[in-house]
């Protein structure tokens, strides 16, 4: 280890970076310091730790956490009180046993959770990476990678730490990374090493590398990095383009070397992770408050009792002293009252029995199992069932008001599919049956057989045979169409395992090129100056004259190629609105029909592109090329001039057709979103992806519709701009709604408050906000404005946001709205959001597991969310509320009830079956407004309980005070009274639970009848001769129930008590059901009357859009790879597909190199071929 070649990394401590300061303890306004993070600080390894405890800290830390719960602390106080014999009215083990039980159960659960965190940490920490040690590469665990190490990464590997790219297998030190885990963007990104280090691709050279990096302190900004490399006396500035971040995946690059700059917890990924919070449900918090109230109530009761006792002792007890003298220490009546106070606190503690907490936990655990067991949330493709990873949040699922969703991998599958196309006015892609009706494409629909094409990609699916026929019949337009797709792109071909694989910058492009490949125009190879396409089995090489690259304003890209016959053609693809303006007037008719078809495609939610071409004559082209070459060397305003030049040649094109690409949504996403919308759940999409894509997805998954009144786009770059845009949008909404109800002007003025308006707004608005605007909008002066506006809108889409911003948005809503938030995501970029929200949901089955590990619930597909919320959430909430109401009722009714009774109550509440829960999402609203269990509800059931207890006591009192047993022996003794009251109580609460039960299943019957039986069994057992024989002092009630329950009059008393307790409640219930039925009641009635009918499936499928809202391109948001290709920088040797031969010799040294390399891989001396060195060293 000591020999490890480690480099120095310094971090600049400036005033801005508090983190470094904190660690260093430097004065705030100190001079610029360098913080050496290499050898001296051994802690800076790459180990990550998400677990909370280790073996030694577990017990104290866990206990400390547990005693922060009000209830647990309360029970400890009680326990201490009970240990004092003078005031103890119950033996101490009645508290200690359940308390220990609760503590142990919770501790075991925490321990298991933490164990799994340890395991996943360990799994990540033990991943292998290759580290340069003592001049050779050695396998080393991730956790042992230190700052300053040089590590080697291979294709498709995760990057182990934040590293500075030194060199790679690609020429010019280029390498490609996928950052989906970090920011959700799916296109590959290019990273390039410094030119001075890019030829270090050799272990011995790397060993001699002794650069020194000075960089900024660790932070969470994913798109920014500043630093300098000092090497051989020179300084080189470093930026984000030279850094590979932890969590990225190396793609399309055989290997690369990098120097670790940030490791472990300092990496940007971990910095973005946010803090794990202990999540509590609102019912938990409410319960805590209630426990405090009850405690206050207890104290009141105790005080009343104590005063009563003092008075009694003075007036009565003193004269009774003869029979019951005061104990020595009990010197006065006041002191006796003081003791009584404590005794009553203990006796009455059963108002909040510890069983409440046990029962609540058990209930939640049960629900978690039901979630795990739900076969409808099981995905058979990935073999994943839903998992409730946290078992304490179930009822909160029934109260969600905001859902924050990631896009990539959550809403979409991140697969682009070439779905339809229009060629020369004919659409392809739909399947018709023999009667000419369109057939819905399902799994079973027969795919087109591409076996005629040896190069076809097996995973490509197309259903319309007519297109293949058209290709086979050599329809010139169709051929030209696919030729365009095969030529006009920036995709790189690669051979892997004998198959042709495309590496596309964006998945859209990949889909288009793959489509062309399958239809017989396979793009096989490219050099900087040529493109080889295998056209219907024949290799044809086109000379690539120019790539007119894509950018955001042009919204199109073109290529100029010369074919083998020497004809020069320009092929262009781009957004239809742009292309249509550049067309030759002769295509006018075609434009009209194509436009219609584009509308149809857009209506299907597909992404469309228009394709056009143009033949160029030689001379014009020569002139243009000269200008082009000249401009390439110009430095000033090159971009603008180039754009003008491009536009000049892209005039007068002929339309070929259009393509339609489906950004494949996950199964059932639109239905889920509409259903959740109906349940008044607001869905916000937070994505790292670009605006166009996000908006398009929002349209195709029903978040935005054509009837959405207005979509506000906020994209300001400064605080002022953003503020203006937000304010304008808000005013717009408010003024419109004012106009819409002019009659209520006075009323509006009267309220004046915006929140009142929220309900009144009928029109639907949507808000789209960009990452940089969001940064301003989240600042304190604007955040309230932003939130107000966002809540006025039906859908909110935030694009290009960083993981930390996602968490900030969630936090903002949490802080200001007091609503339950749920975040759902699949990648590492969603972790912080998942951790911040009340409920985090991870989509599992994808590559990374970070999201799942941080989540509370996980399942395979977004559509499971509706079931999780609308069915399980609602039931959980409903059950928990019923349970709590019932529990408090029961406890107040009579505090001394056997504690097992609470256990099963939860099973008794399931009101509406799952199908109807899904069909009527509005049922969900009761949870959001906390309707079923709130403080009012608590008071009502407390009152109910107190009334019941009053009746329960005074009816038997009235009866017994003058009662004599049938055989003359007494009946009014205390034990008989206890048995009678307890029996009445059990019967009353059983009847009550029967009334509360909406859904009698076998389990309910079992528990209700079982508990009644249990009661009697236990009652008789406790009073049996045997137990008395063993412990005469403990079980002294021997025979009480036998003697009293055999008495008719006792049963008459019980009957009367039951009737008196139940009838008022029944009366109120039936009045309520008849006069003010809730929606649940209505639905239950409906459900009953329609029991035999199968509920028809509601059609929530995506409504076909009619308008012309078209989404164009999803190229990169940045400049394309065009320049890289023409410069030849990203060309590599072994990319040439063996199926195609090179007839033409390209005048490129690179290509010659390639040929040489193919013949003799070892002796290659290309500028970018570190293979040799590598093979030497290995």
């Amino acid at each position, binding site marked *: 280890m000591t020999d490890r070649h480690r480099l120095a990394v310094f971090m600049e401590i400036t005033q801005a970076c508090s983190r470094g300061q904190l660690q260093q303890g430097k004065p705030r306004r100190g001079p610029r310091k360098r913080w050496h993070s290499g050898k001296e600080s051994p802690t800076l390894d790459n180990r990550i730790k998400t677990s909370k405890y280790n073996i030694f800290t577990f017990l104290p830390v866990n206990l400390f956490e547990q005693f922060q719960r009000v209830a647990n602390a309360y029970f400890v106080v009680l326990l201490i009180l009970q240990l004092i014999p003078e005031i103890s009215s119950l033996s101490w083990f009645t508290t200690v046993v359940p308390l220990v039980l609760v503590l142990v159960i919770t501790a075991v659960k925490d321990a298991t959770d933490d164990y799994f965190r340890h395991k996943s940490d360990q799994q990540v920490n033990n991943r292998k990476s290759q580290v340069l040690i003592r001049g050779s590469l050695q396998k080393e665990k991730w956790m042992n990678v230190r700052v300053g190490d040089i590590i080697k990464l291979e294709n498709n590997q995760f990057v182990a730490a934040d590293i500075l790219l030194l060199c790679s297998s690609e020429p010019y030190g280029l390498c490609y990374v996928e950052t989906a885990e970090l920011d959700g963007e799916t296109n590959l990104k290019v990273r390039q090493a410094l030119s001075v280090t890019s030829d270090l691709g050799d272990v011995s050279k790397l060993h001699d590398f002794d650069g020194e990096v000075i960089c900024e302190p660790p932070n969470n900004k994913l798109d920014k990095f500043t630093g300098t490399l000092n090497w051989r006396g020179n300084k080189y500035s470093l930026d984000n383009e030279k850094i590979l971040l932890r969590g990225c995946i190396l793609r399309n690059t055989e290997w690369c070397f990098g120097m670790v700059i940030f490791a472990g917890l300092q990496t940007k990924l971990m910095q973005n992770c946010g803090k794990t919070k202990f999540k509590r449900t609102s019912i938990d918090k409410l319960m805590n408050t209630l426990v405090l109230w009850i405690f206050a109530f207890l104290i009141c009761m105790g005080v009343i009792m104590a005063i009563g006792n003092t008075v009694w002792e003075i007036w009565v007890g003193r004269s009774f002293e003869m029979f019951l003298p005061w104990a020595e220490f009990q010197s006065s009546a006041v002191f006796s009252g003081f003791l009584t106070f404590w005794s009553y606190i203990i006796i009455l503690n059963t108002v909040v029995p510890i069983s409440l907490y046990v029962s609540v936990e058990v209930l939640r655990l049960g629900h978690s199992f039901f979630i*795990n067991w739900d076969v409808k949330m099981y995905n*058979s493709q990935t073999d994943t069932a839903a998992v409730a990873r946290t078992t304490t949040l179930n009822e909160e699922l029934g109260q969600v008001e905001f859902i924050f969703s990631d896009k990539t991998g959550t809403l979409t599958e991140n697969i682009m599919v070439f779905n339809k196309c229009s060629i020369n006015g004919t659409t392809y892609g739909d399947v018709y049956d023999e009667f000419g009706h369109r057939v819905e494409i399902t799994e079973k629909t027969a795919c087109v057989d591409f076996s005629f094409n040896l190069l076809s990609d097996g995973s490509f699916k197309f259903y319309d045979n007519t297109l293949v026929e058209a290709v086979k019949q050599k329809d010139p337009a169709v051929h030209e169409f696919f030729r365009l797709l095969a030529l006009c792109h920036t995709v790189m071909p690669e051979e892997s395992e004998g198959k042709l694989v495309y590496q596309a910058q964006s998945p859209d492009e990949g889909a288009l090129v793959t489509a062309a490949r399958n239809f017989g125009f396979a793009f096989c190879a490219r050099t900087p100056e040529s493109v080889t396409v295998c056209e219907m089995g024949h290799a044809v090489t086109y000379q690539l004259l120019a790539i007119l690259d894509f950018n955001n304003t042009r919204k199109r890209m073109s290529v100029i190629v010369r074919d083998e016959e020497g004809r020069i053609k320009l092929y262009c693809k781009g957004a239809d609105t742009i292309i249509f303006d550049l067309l030759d007037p002769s295509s006018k008719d075609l434009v009209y029909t194509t436009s219609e078809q584009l509308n149809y495609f857009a209506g299907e939610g597909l992404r469309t592109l228009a394709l056009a071409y143009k033949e160029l004559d030689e001379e014009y082209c020569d002139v243009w090329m000269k200008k082009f070459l000249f401009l390439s060397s110009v430095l000033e305003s090159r971009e603008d001039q180039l754009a003008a030049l491009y536009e000049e040649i892209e005039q007068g094109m002929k339309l070929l057709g259009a393509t339609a690409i489906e950004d494949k949504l996950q199964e059932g996403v639109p239905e889920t979103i509409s259903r959740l919308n109906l349940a008044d759940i607001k869905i916000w999409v937070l994505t790292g992806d670009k605006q166009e894509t996000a908006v398009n997805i929002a349209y195709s998954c029903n978040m935005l519709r054509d009837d959405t009144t207005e979509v506000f786009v906020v994209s300001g770059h400064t605080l002022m701009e953003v503020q203006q845009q937000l304010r304008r949008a808000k005013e717009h909404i408010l003024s419109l709604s004012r106009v819409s109800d002019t009659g209520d002007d006075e009323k509006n003025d009267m309220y004046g408050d915006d929140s009142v308006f929220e309900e009144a707004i009928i029109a639907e608005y949507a808000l789209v906000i960009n990452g940089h605007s969001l940064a301003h909008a989240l600042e304190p002066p604007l955040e309230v404005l932003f939130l107000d506006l966002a809540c006025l809108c039906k859908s909110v889409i935030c694009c290009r946001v960083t993981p930390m911003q996602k968490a900030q948005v969630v936090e903002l809503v949490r802080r200001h709205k007091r609503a339950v938030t749920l975040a759902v995501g699949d990648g590492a970029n969603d972790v912080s959001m998942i951790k911040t929200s009340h409920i985090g949901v991870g989509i599992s089955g994808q590559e990374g597991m970070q999201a799942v590990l941080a989540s509370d619930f996980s399942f395979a597909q977004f559509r499971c969310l509706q079931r999780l919320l609308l069915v399980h959430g609602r039931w959980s909430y409903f059950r928990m509320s019923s349970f709590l109401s019932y529990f408090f009722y029961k406890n107040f009714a009579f505090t001394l009830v056997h504690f097992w009774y609470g256990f099963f109550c939860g099973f008794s509440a399931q009101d509406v079956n799952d199908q109807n829960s899904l069909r009527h999402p509005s049922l969900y609203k009761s949870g959001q407004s906390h309707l079923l269990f709130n403080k009012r509800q608590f008071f009502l059931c407390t009152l109910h309980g107190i009334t019941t207890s009053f009746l329960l006591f005074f009816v038997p009192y009235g*009866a017994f005070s003058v009662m004599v047993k*049938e055989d003359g022996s*007494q009946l009014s003794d205390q034990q008989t009274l206890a048995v009678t009251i307890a029996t009445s109580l059990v019967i009353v609460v059983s009847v009550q639970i029967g009334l509360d039960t909406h859904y009698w299943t076998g389990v*309910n019957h079992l528990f209700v009848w079982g508990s009644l039986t249990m009661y009697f069994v236990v009652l008789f057992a406790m009073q049996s001769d045997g137990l008395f024989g063993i412990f005469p002092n403990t079980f002294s009630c021997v025979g009480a129930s036998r003697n009293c329950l055999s008495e008719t009059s006792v049963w008459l008393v019980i009957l009367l008590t039951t009737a008196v307790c139940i009838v008022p409640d029944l009366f109120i219930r*039936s*009045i309520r059901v008849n006069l003010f039925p809730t929606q649940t009641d209505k639905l239950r009635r409906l*459900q009953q009357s329609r029991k035999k009918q199968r509920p028809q499936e509601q059609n929530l499928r995506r409504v076909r859009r009619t308008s012309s809202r078209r989404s164009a391109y999803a190229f990169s948001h940045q400049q394309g790879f065009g320049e890289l290709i023409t410069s030849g920088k990203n060309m590599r040797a072994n990319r040439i597909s063996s199926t195609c031969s090179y007839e033409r010799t390209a005048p490129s040294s690179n290509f010659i190199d390639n040929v040489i390399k193919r013949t003799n891989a070892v002796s290659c001396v290309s500028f970018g071929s570190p293979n040799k060195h590598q093979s030497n060293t290995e």
Partner: protein
Amino acid sequence: MGKEKSKSGPLARRPDNSAFKQQRLPAWSPMLTASTVLPFFYLLALICMLLGVWLLLTVQRTQEIKVRDSRLQGNLPRERQRKDLSDPSDPKDLFYLSSLENFHQNLRRYMDSRDDGQMVGRKRSLKSPSSYCKPFDFDANGVPIAPCGAVANSMFNDSFLLTYYTINGPSVVPLLRKGLTWYTDKNIKYRNPKADNQTLAEVFEGTTQPSFWQKPVYRLDPFDPSNNGFINEDLIVWMREAAFPNFKKLYGILYRANKPYTNGLPAGNYSATISYNFPVQYFRGRKELVLTTVSWFGGQNHFLPIAYLVTSSLILLTAVVLTGVWWKFGKDGKNMAE
């Protein structure tokens, strides 16, 4: 084995599709509709009404005489009264009850001040009473008290004698002083310490009587040796602590084997002789002698029938209101319309 095998396929993690796990158990879901609630209410009202009337009639037939006078407090042992207490149609027993008022047998500290282990005859407990008995566990000389505790110490020890003045002169009404307790108490809960060939007095040697008692526990009943010790019925009756400060304890049952008492007490003149032992003036209490007959449903108790009648009428009232509500609003189910 077979089950495990089936779990290893590609769908290994698929949850079981059982009715329980999928929460699809067949269920009966009752609804509170007018058609179910109204008949129930009317029926309940009717049942309560009938029970109330029946109970009332039963209670009317029971008879009760209370000999309740402040003079019982003083030293006036004789009381003469003329009262007809016979009911030839009711062959039930006639009970003597002693009634105490304002005596708090239900005080927690009082109730705890006893040792059931001692009373069930455990030898060890006999000599070392439980600490709950304090300060009635040992006397001043440190001798253990049997039975210990405040409850036993304050045992009621008045005795009653009822005299019937016939034409032939006064005759003492015969009284059964046995069968006053629950079977379980007499035979299980209270036992004398096991004595092999020892007399009761020998068994209890080494203990002393409670300080308020006039005689030791093994000599409570001078007439019946088997009614002594912890199984003395008066003691057992007393040890069953009353739930309320005003309570009655069974004293004796009229012995009806011989005439003229075969049908209860015949009409005539009676006097009650009370030997006054139990002081009540300290706690401002009162004593009563109650003679009562019982019905199948116990002694004279007007509370239950009246409560039933009141409940019945209330239920009827709510039922009528409910009917009205239903008639006016809910009949056509318009509130239920979605």
